[in-house]
């Protein structure tokens, strides 16, 4: 049974003051996230990522379609006990201290009173806030708030964790910490669903990703699958600053860097290029397949759609 | 001096100067406004409107209007005013907001009825006010007493006074003097002793300082009038006995017609004129006095 499943989940807003025009925030979305996966939900700003998360959390209601988490309908209270949520730019009650906030949330999540203190302390230590536990949240920095946010999301040991842009606004150290945490969660067997527009993060963390743009799902699959689905290319580096015309003719991209030349050409033409180099007696330095980065794939997808639209 | 510091000093000085200037200007502005607007504007005259505006907090609103009424009368009285136009409306508003505020009716009885400067000179308004009070509080003997008082003192309608006292005496827990007063109206209405009885009754039973004060002044005046009448009688007796008017009270005392030098309620000795008239030394201290005044003396009105 998938941990998260949506069935043609759709959200349309009526916008405007007088004559309301419909604005489709999310086109019918059908996807399934398997248990134990780290699933990335990618897209530019305004793509519908937060809308999807809010639909899954029951904060807004779908215009059509439905969603299930752990086999139960999204608005079933039994579900809520098993999920954790970190919203984008989280705001918490700033008059509470970190400890008080976590204790409050633990209580609301149904953690029994005896357990509560232990869990809260453990959580504070885990996210590195043990020292600031008695400071009011209004004095917290962005990074500290993000850590509190993650703490409250996993405090009650949920099976599925939803994170909306968990790295946003963090410095490199903070981002590293969040990445480590997500990997820990995965190691604990939890399902992690997180949205982001920072593709390098998704690339390194996710088992599978979905790409959305303007409320539409563009692609779903493993990262490797997606990037290699695009034309595979190979990178050749050899000594010498001259690029033989014959190699150029193989439809290659050439660049000189320092004493070496660098060329990128389609996989199919590699053999021919190697032959040419051998004949020209060039010293081969390296031969590597080039994987399209997710970013390139991404941009390509956007452009494709724009062209097609 | 660096700029922020300079800004601070300028701003600080402006603040102080501005405050002082505002105080001075308020006084100038007030002086320039026509006097009438300052005191005599009763913005809302309709009792039902005021009831609504007080959002149900009628008790407090009544207390505020009551305070205003007392202040209005008191300050004007202090300045020898000849009219008290707002007193009746203020008391009407007060009692409309809180019909159970008995002291307001009593105050109206005491200060609406007498002629200026000691009152508003509106005895009919006073009667109307107290009657409305009686309708709202039919079991309070004090109100019938106040009604009878106004009928007796200012309107000289002894029959109406008698009726009021009679009604009052029938109320449970009524003060016994109501029955006595009802009886006196029939036969001894003009007797000064009756007036004195009434003022004493008011003095003894009222809870309001201003009303008590007023009663005390009346009683003192009555006392002096009694004294003057009595003393002049003794002067006549002296004249009859000894063939000439006495030269002084000491002379009369020496002739054992008086126990000593007679003193007025403030402890000041009375004066004896060669014509045998008895006068008070400080007539301005007796605002309600009609006898024993030096010839040509006119009350300056309204000493508190």
């Amino acid at each position, binding site marked *: 049974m998938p941990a998260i499943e949506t069935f043609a989940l759709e959200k349309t807003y009526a916008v405007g003051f007088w004559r309301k025009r419909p604005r489709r925030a999310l086109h019918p979305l059908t996807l399934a996230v398997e248990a134990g996966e780290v699933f990335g939900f990618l897209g530019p700003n305004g793509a519908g990522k937060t809308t999807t998360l809010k639909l899954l959390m029951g904060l807004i209601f779908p215009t059509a379609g439905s969603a299930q988490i752990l086999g139960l309908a999204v608005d079933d209270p039994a579900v809520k006990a098993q999920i954790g949520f970190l919203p984008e730019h989280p*705001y918490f009650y700033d008059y509470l201290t970190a400890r008080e906030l976590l204790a409050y949330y633990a209580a609301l999540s149904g953690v029994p009173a005896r357990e509560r203190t232990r869990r809260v302390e453990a959580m504070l230590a885990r996210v590195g806030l043990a020292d600031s536990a008695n400071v009011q949240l209004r004095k917290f920095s962005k990074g500290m708030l993000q850590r509190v946010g993650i703490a409250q999301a996993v405090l009650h040991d949920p099976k599925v964790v939803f994170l909306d842009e968990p790295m946003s606004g963090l410095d490199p150290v903070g981002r590293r910490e969040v990445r480590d945490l997500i990997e820990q969660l995965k190691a604990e067997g939890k399902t992690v669903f997180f949205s982001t527009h920072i593709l390098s993060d998704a690339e390194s963390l996710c088992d599978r990703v979905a790409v959305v743009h303007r409320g539409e799902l563009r692609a779903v699959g493993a990262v490797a699958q997606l990037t290699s689905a695009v034309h595979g290319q190979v990178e050749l580096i050899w000594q010498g600053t001259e690029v033989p015309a014959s190699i150029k003719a193989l439809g290659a991209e050439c660049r000189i860097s320092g004493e070496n030349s660098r060329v990128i050409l389609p996989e199919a033409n590699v053999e021919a290029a190697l032959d040419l180099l051998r004949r020209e007696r060039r010293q081969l330095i390296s031969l590597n397949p080039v994987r399209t980065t997710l970013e390139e794939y991404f941009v390509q997808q956007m452009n494709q759609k724009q062209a097609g639209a | 001096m660096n700029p922020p510091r300079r800004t601070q000093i300028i701003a600080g000085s402006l603040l102080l100067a501005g405050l002082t200037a505002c105080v001075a200007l308020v006084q100038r502005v007030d002086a320039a406004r026509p006097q009438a607007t300052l005191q005599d504007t009763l913005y809302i005259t309709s009792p039902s409107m005021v009831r*609504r505006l007080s959002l149900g907090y009628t008790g407090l609103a*009544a207390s505020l209007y009551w305070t205003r009424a007392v202040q209005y009368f008191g300050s004007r009285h202090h300045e020898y005013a000849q009219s008290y136009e707002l007193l009746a409306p203020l008391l009407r508003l007060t009692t409309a907001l809180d019909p159970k505020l008995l002291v307001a009716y009593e105050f109206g009885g005491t200060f609406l009825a007498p002629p200026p400067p000691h009152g508003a000179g509106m005895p009919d308004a006073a009667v109307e006010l107290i009657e409305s009070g009686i309708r709202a509080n039919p079991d309070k003997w004090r109100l019938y007493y106040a009604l009878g008082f106004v009928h007796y003192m200012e309107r000289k309608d002894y029959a109406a006074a008698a009726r009021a006292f009679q009604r009052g005496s029938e109320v449970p827990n009524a003060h016994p003097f109501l029955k006595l007063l009802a009886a006196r109206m029939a036969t001894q209405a003009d007797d000064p002793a009756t007036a004195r009885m009434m003022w004493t009754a008011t003095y003894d039973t009222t809870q309001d300082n201003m009303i008590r004060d007023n009663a005390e002044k009346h009683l003192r005046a009555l006392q002096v009038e009694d004294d003057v009448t009595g003393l002049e009688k003794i002067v006549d007796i002296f004249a009859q006995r000894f063939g000439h008017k006495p030269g002084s009270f000491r002379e009369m005392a020496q002739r054992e017609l008086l126990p000593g030098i007679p003193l007025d309620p403030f402890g000041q000795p009375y004066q004896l004129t060669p014509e045998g008239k008895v006068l008070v030394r400080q007539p301005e201290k007796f605002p309600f006095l009609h006898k024993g005044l030096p010839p040509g003396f006119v009350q300056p009105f309204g000493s508190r």
Partner: protein
Amino acid sequence: MNHPITHIAANTFREAVRDRVLYNLVAFAVLMAGAAVLVGQISIDIERLVVINLGLTAVSLFGVVIAVFIGIGLVSKEIDKRTLYTVLSRPVRRWQFIAGKFCGLAGTLAVNAFFMGIGVFGALLYVSRRLQRADSYVLVALYFIVLELLIMTAIALLFSSFSSPLLSAVFAFSLFVIGSFSEDLRGFAGMSNGLAHWLTTAAAYLVPNLAALNVISPVAHGEPISGSLILWNTLYAAIYCLTALAGTVLIFERRNLK
């Protein structure tokens, strides 16, 4: 099942306290002390009257202002600040959230009124030097004021669930004002005809019957309050609050949060 409500109520109370709401008690104390001392200038019978009138009116007005100013933000602030997201993603039903918020603010107001009541009795003792039987009626008046505050809280909460704070404040205070002369409104409704009659009748009954909950003047005169009035007022307040809360829940259940 009720645990979320208790926790949310407790947290709402904590928020009000940390928001320094209870400092209004200081202003109140100063007012009562000043009044008790100044009122000594007036004749004896009136002293008690003024102290009770002033004291209870202040309790009522302070309370209504707090009820409205905090109430209008109870839901709208949580939506604006998105603090609601992490609460509703937990096993807390939306109606429990509303109930918890109501109970929290109601509790704050009751505590506030309690301390103010002590202030009023303090001033009363200072002025009369001893306690009288009639002073117990002051407790009834205080109880009615608490009921009035509960109604205003429910109203403010209702508006908070769909309207901006400014509009909510305007509506809530308007209902307070109209509620204070709801009797007049009912009388007016009786005298009008046709559509006006139906509209004014509807309005007259929708608006809270606050006039009945104001017994400050009778109590100031030392009059007892009938048991049946206490009973009916309690029932009315309870049902009015429940109705308003039901409306709030209805609106809030299907609201798309931004």
